[in-house]
């Protein structure tokens, strides 16, 4: 607890705005992005899934996740000292307020909220791999368990000052590994364990609305300014730099993907441009607070091409039905961005650089844990209920079969 006068109001204002921006990335950014890509008969289910996951993770985060992630107990996991909504004390009578040791200039409520938005979007990203076939109840249970068992420990390793990857010196400014590699690998595991959608590989699965996906991408871009610049936890020059490199990397990556697609397939596509932009945003995420603007161009160009490869050639080689290419864009983009952070990090910015080896260790550790723990969560759920809807429900569409609603 600290006196109210110890709180920096400008930084607090910025972090609260950034929290709202990150939440906007999920609601409705991811909701629109994903709902535009599924078939028309599954649009409502996709949106319900994203909104419901956000609600579930909000409660699990403030109930358990925040405490496990951001208390300094061990290099592997925090304690329960901040669990059950115990972290947000405001005592107006004594003019004191609780703060996190990681951000003593902010009210802990603001810091915990900012981190909640990250937990929400990370879990929501996985929805993209299981759409059009996962049972809704199973998804809700998955979200609750995954956010606590998988996301919280990984966040602890990387962002808690005593976390083992943090101590190793791995750099991850805003979540290249914690969010994107983590969610991407989890999505791939889910896709393998769920099995393919009926008709995959023989029937065309036409997107419901690329216009929705474009609007979702625009909201993702807008919110990503909060995601990256907000991770500076301060309204200062480093946040402004992170703000700029975010836009630059997204633009470079969008053009890179579009250019590669134009060469390989003969035409640029809207989905390609949008996917490239998202790939660039993913790749700049770990690097946003450590690189100069010129480096962001290179990160974006490389990420655009690499994510195109990840969502096309690599996807087909892996053989899993990762419905909306979560691994191809977020997983591959996160891995590329994490490694490129070491290549392009400028010690002048934050007084530190990183080695490619440390970044590789971080990526490998997060990927391995995410894969194993996600598989464990799915196995546990499968003991309680089926993961997939039945064949009739899948063919009829999840909107009608699970929600008795239809998008017109």
């Amino acid at each position, binding site marked *: 607890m600290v006196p109210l006068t110890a709180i920096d109001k400008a930084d607090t204002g910025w972090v609260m705005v950034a929290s709202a921006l990150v939440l906007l990335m999920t609601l409705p950014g991811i909701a629109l992005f994903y709902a535009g890509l599924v078939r*028309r008969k599954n649009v409502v289910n996709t949106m319900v899934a994203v909104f419901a996951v956000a609600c579930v993770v909000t409660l699990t985060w403030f109930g358990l996740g925040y405490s496990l992630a951001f208390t300094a107990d061990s290099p592997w996991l925090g304690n329960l000292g901040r669990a059950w909504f115990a972290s947000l004390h405001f005592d107006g009578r004594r003019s004191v307020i609780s703060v996190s040791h990681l951000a003593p200039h902010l009210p802990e409520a603001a810091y915990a909220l900012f981190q909640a938005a990250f937990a929400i979007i990370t879990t929501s990203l996985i929805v993209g791999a299981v759409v059009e076939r996962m049972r809704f109840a199973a998804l809700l249970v998955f979200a609750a368990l995954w956010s606590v068992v998988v996301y919280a420990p990984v966040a602890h390793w990387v962002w808690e000052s005593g976390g083992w990857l943090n101590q190793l010196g791995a750099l991850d400014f805003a979540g290249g590994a914690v969010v994107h590699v983590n969610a991407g690998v989890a999505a791939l595991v889910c896709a393998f364990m769920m099995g393919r959608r009926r008709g995959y590989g*023989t*029937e*065309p699965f036409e997107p419901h609305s690329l216009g929705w996906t474009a609007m979702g991408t625009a909201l993702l871009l807008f919110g990503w300014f909060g995601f990256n610049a907000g991770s500076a936890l301060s309204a200062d020059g480093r946040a402004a730099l992170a703000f700029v490199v975010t836009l630059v990397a997204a633009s470079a990556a969008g053009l890179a993907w579009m250019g590669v697609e134009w060469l390989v397939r003969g035409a640029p596509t809207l989905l390609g441009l949008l996917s490239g932009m998202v790939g660039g945003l993913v790749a700049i995420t770990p690097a946003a607070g450590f690189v100069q603007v010129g480096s962001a161009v290179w990160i974006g160009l490389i990420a655009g091409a690499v994510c195109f490869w990840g*969502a096309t050639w690599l996807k087909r080689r892996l053989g899993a039905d990762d419905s909306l290419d979560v691994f191809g864009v977020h997983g591959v983009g996160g891995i590329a961005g994490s490694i490129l952070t070491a290549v392009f990090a400028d010690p002048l910015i934050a007084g530190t650089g990183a080695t490619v080896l440390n970044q590789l260790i971080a990526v490998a550790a997060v990927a391995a844990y995410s894969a194993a723990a996600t598989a464990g969560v799915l196995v546990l759920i499968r003991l309680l209920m089926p993961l997939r809807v039945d064949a009739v429900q899948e063919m009829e569409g999840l909107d009608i079969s699970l929600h008795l609603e239809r998008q017109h």
Partner: protein
Amino acid sequence: MEDSERVAVAAHLHVVLRRKTGRVTDTEWMACNQAYAQAMVAFALEHAREQQDEELARLARRLQDSWSGDKPRHVAPAETAQSDSSVTTKAAEILRTSARYIGGLR
């Protein structure tokens, strides 16, 4: 019925099914796989019965007849000739745009 004509009929049914029921079908597969085509015909006829949709029923029967070798029923020759040429163009467009979504979005 020649293959190209069956593709044209399948493409026309694809367009109408998508517009009226939201169902997206594999046009090329409808034209070369009888079992799949029969399944889509059954789906279309059921929907046509529920919604009293003459156009959908007519197209479904045309596709069905294209497989049985029977002449199409309840279609005026002049109307068929005019609609088939535009349907062939439409079929090519649909095949070009839909096929890219087989096995992946990107």
